[in-house]
């Protein structure tokens, strides 16, 4: 579905006169191969290169070195630009910056309309997309009257309506309250499970990562760690060095282990911890 080979991206910093002050290598020698239908989570501290990497996935940025293929197409090849943008949809942090329609269904129809989809099919796509994120009953509402989580789900519906094979979400829950976060995550997981859409989720919330198939941890533009959530979150100290964290329950299990309770590594959920504790002491 998506493949990067020795991908690198450099920002050139300039002073006020336009002289080159220095070069920042925001993405540095990244290789990955993401299969169709995978759920990938990307973690990394602020400035680690996550968003820059994400912007390569739908040809908003082009690599300085190396190549990235989306569905077999090189993003640097201009003739594929629109195919790639349609194939790999992107959702950003702030829902208010992404919604342009006066009513929800109009907003969701904007993408397919621009692609020249026939009117009848636009409506079908709008309805099915809104149903996929659980916002169908709000189709006639004004986006201004929605909560943050609802707005973000409308943004996601707008992307789905373009029938992408892959959705890249760049901190989609950063501005939401706990229930908004849950709503968005549930919608994202359903798209992955039911519609088999490839998901790439960038987040700072460790609890959102536990359902991913694979986790990439970025630092200084490189993929520093890679593995299943269990593998990644068993490295508590290493993650802390990378300015990250683990879910609270994982940290609790880790602290208990240090105090001599023989729990296994990589506990990710409350149920797992309770089960293990019952096995040990029940």
């Amino acid at each position, binding site marked *: 579905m998506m493949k990067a080979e020795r991908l690198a991206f450099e920002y050139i910093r300039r002073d006020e006169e336009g002289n080159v002050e220095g070069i920042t290598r925001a993405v540095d020698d990244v290789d990955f191969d993401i299969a169709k239908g995978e759920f990938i989570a990307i973690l*990394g*501290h*602020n*400035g*680690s290169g996550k968003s820059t990497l994400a912007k390569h996935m739908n040809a908003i940025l082009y690599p300085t070195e190396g190549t990235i293929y989306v569905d077999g197409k090189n993003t640097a090849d201009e003739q594929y630009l629109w195919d790639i943008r349609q194939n790999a949809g992107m959702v950003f*942090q702030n829902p208010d910056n992404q919604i342009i329609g006066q009513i929800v269904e109009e907003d969701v129809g904007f993408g397919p309309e621009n692609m020249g989809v026939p009117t009848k099919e636009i409506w079908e796509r709008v309805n099915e997309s809104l149903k996929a994120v659980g916002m169908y009953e709000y189709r006639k509402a004004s986006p201004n009257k929605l*909560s*943050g*989580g609802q707005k973000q789900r409308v943004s996601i519906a707008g992307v789905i309506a373009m029938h992408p094979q892959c959705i890249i979400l760049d*901190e989609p829950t*950063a*501005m*939401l*309250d*706990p*229930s*908004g976060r849950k709503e968005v995550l549930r919608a994202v997981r359903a798209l992955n499970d039911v519609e088999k859409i490839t998901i790439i989720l960038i987040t*700072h919330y*460790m*609890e959102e990562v536990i359902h991913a198939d694979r986790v990439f941890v970025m630092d200084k533009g490189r993929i520093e760690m890679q593995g299943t959530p269990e593998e990644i979150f068993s490295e508590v100290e290493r993650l*802390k060095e990378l*300015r*990250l*964290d683990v*879910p*609270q*329950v994982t*940290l*609790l299990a880790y*602290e*208990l282990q240090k*105090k001599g*309770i023989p729990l296994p590594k990589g506990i990710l959920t*409350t*149920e797992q*911890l*309770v089960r293990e*504790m*019952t096995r*040990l*002491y*029940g």
Partner: protein
Amino acid sequence: MTMILDHVSHAYESGTAMQVMALDNISLVIPDGQFIGLIGHTGSGKSTLVQHLNGLLAPTSGNIYYDGRDIHDEDYPKKELRSKVGLVFQYPEHQLFEVDVFKDVCFGPKNLGLSQKEIELRAYEALKLVGIEDEYFYQSPFDLSGGQKRRVAIAGVLAMKPQVLILDEPTAGLDPKGRDEILKQIAALKAKTGITVILVSHSMEDVAEYVERLIVMNRGRVLYDDTPSAVFAHYEELEKIGLAAPQVTYVMNELAKAGFAVRTDVTTIEEACDEILRVVSSVPFE
């Protein structure tokens, strides 16, 4: 300097069919030096409440008293109130504008009409309070990391020497380390200066860790006002209004259901760890 909210209500689009009661009959006392958390789902009235505290919005009914005086009296010095009650908005780094960090922090006190020396002293002190080192003073604020920018923006408010500091989601969008750094810095600053801090947050884990009093808003009303552990004991009710308890509170409740004799009013990892060890140390391995 005690702040009292006496039956405060605020209606948006009052008198029209669109009227929304953003605040509905709120009475609160905020004494000196408390560390208060304010939580509620989007649209619960948190931001409206916070904007009443420094007089940006006026109640449609009820009164707000600061240090015994009604802040909406004709002769009340509003400007003074705004410097005493400092408000740090969401994403405050978007409000940075000066050519260097130091000048940016000077902007607030400069508007208070202080002497140049006093302005610079305050800016220096404020930057130190948020942990920004001298080497950054003459850099452009735009060249700093996300967490640093945010701390500079907070310093800009601190330089006004507020007695009450209100922070609206100060950790949104920061990585976990950045979150910890900001909150530790705020806790340290509170311990050092003794000012009142009101933390508006969507992170239950953060408020559980830092605040001594937690106010929960729902539909413009105060639903709970108690210690974090007492509030999070209502985790089922909190979920109904779009909130949650910290993950460890759920762990403790589930353990209790599974037959472990643990206390369930636990809200931090440290407490949870101690409590679990206390209970299992009395049980021999099978």
